[in-house]
């Protein structure tokens, strides 16, 4: 398998607080990697850095060998190759579902409106949202909104999809429909970097799990090993807290 994403020595501070302290991580094509760890461990920041939504302080990020963090690169062009889905959906409330999904392809990719709409309709149908195409986001449930947000990212045909705690803002009964969609994407071969608190989901879907602690990857490996035989004491404590909270 060829390498899709490589992160080297990534550091990021907000003011005096260092949020990422030297992250090294590589993803192969079609690989699904889950980032777990307590709130504030740097998962979201890492994803935002990969999408160049946050300027980084140190380190380098490569997408298929091309350095994203090099001086003078066209960030808009590179962002089109990487999709991100946010915890709070961030759909555009003044646009219909269809417009939400076609905005990127028409404006950033320069696709004709008709082609963009065909692409959107196909994706919406595939994920059970065909009847919502003309609705506005505030008429949809949280689970539907998040599925639309995923479709919006997919419409750009990204090489890599970043998912930032996409189920954390959802009512418990709506989590399942979103996770099912992500599982389907994983089976379809989508390369994904997923920050999540859904441990059983991570366990069954991820090829690899990284435990982040204090802005560094403390431990990584296949999910079975991380969840059943973590070597680091802090990973064990984190997982015990999760079990105690009834989330695993």
């Amino acid at each position, binding site marked *: 398998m060829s390498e899709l994403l490589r992160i080297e020595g990534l550091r990021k501070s907000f003011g005096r607080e260092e949020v990422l302290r030297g992250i090294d991580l590589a993803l192969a094509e079609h690989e699904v990697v889950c980032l777990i760890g307590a709130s504030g461990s740097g998962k979201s920041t890492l994803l*935002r850095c990969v999408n160049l*939504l946050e300027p980084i302080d140190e380190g380098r990020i490569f997408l298929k060998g091309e350095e994203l963090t090099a001086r003078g690169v066209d960030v808009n062009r590179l*962002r089109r190759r*990487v999709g991100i889905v946010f915890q*709070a959906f*961030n759909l*555009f409330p003044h646009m219909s579902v269809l417009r939400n999904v076609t905005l990127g392809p028409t404006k*950033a990719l320069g696709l004709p409106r008709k082609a963009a709409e065909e692409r959107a309709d196909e994706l919406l149908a595939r994920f059970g949202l065909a009847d919502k195409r003309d609705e506005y986001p505030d008429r949809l449930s949280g689970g539907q909104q998040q599925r639309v947000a995923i479709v919006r990212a997919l419409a*750009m045909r990204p090489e890599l999809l970043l998912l930032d705690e996409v189920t954390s803002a959802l009512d418990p009964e709506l989590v399942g429909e979103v996770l099912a969609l992500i599982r389907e994407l994983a089976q379809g071969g989508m390369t994904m970097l997923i920050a999540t608190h859904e441990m059983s989901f991570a366990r069954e879907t991820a090829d690899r799990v990284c435990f982040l602690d204090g802005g560094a990857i403390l431990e990584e490996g296949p999910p079975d090993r991380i969840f059943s035989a973590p070597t680091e004491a802090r990973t064990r404590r984190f997982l015990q807290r999760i079990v105690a909270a009834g989330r695993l």
Partner: protein
Amino acid sequence: MIAVVVVSSPGWPEVKRAFFDPDRFTGSFPDLARAFLLNVRIFLIAEAIILVTALVVAVMRSLPGPVFFPLRALGVAYADFFRGVPTILVIYLFGFGVPALGIAGIPRSPLVWAVVALVLVYTAYVSEVYRAGIESVHPSQEAAARSLGLTRFQALRHVVLPQAVRRVVPPLLNDFIGLQKDTALVALIGPVEAFRQSQIKVAATFNFTPYLATALLFILLTIPLARLTDWLVARDRRRQLAGRSP
């Protein structure tokens, strides 16, 4: 109660004769209405220009990062100056000052420069309204747009501004009501608009009824805009409530 006090006051018969003369009212009304068309022209032209210039100033002030500091500073200086100086002074300075410069190729009509003065003053007010709207759009909206590969300008154009403008329509119309009234200030440098026309008629007859007729004209124009503003506010509130219910 107030009406009773006014009507029973010792000066009332005199005031009634001077301000509420029905014959003079109907007699002066056509001339005043004609002059009022100039007010209407002034504010229609000014409003169309202000909608654009204020947006430009507001966007200038919202640009992030050290690169855009000079533009931001310029926007701040502009808004501070024109909101600080009384409108009447700005109209005097431009209406009398600029034509007096005698520069070739620029209009010499005080009227044109009075309109420019109104545009400059109200652009400062309306740009603040726009800016409040832009700042009320959560940064995550821009992040979502940029993450799709849209440029900063595209994100502004398609995602931030449409939401910002929608939110500020009521306060914006409120500023325009102020502008409509302030078109009367143009009279002070010469052009015969409704207020000036009523002054002329008052001076000729020593009867103040034309002032009342002019006031009525302004009110007739303001009421539809005020009701439209109310309606838009109510509609937005209804929409928000509808959006929050599951």
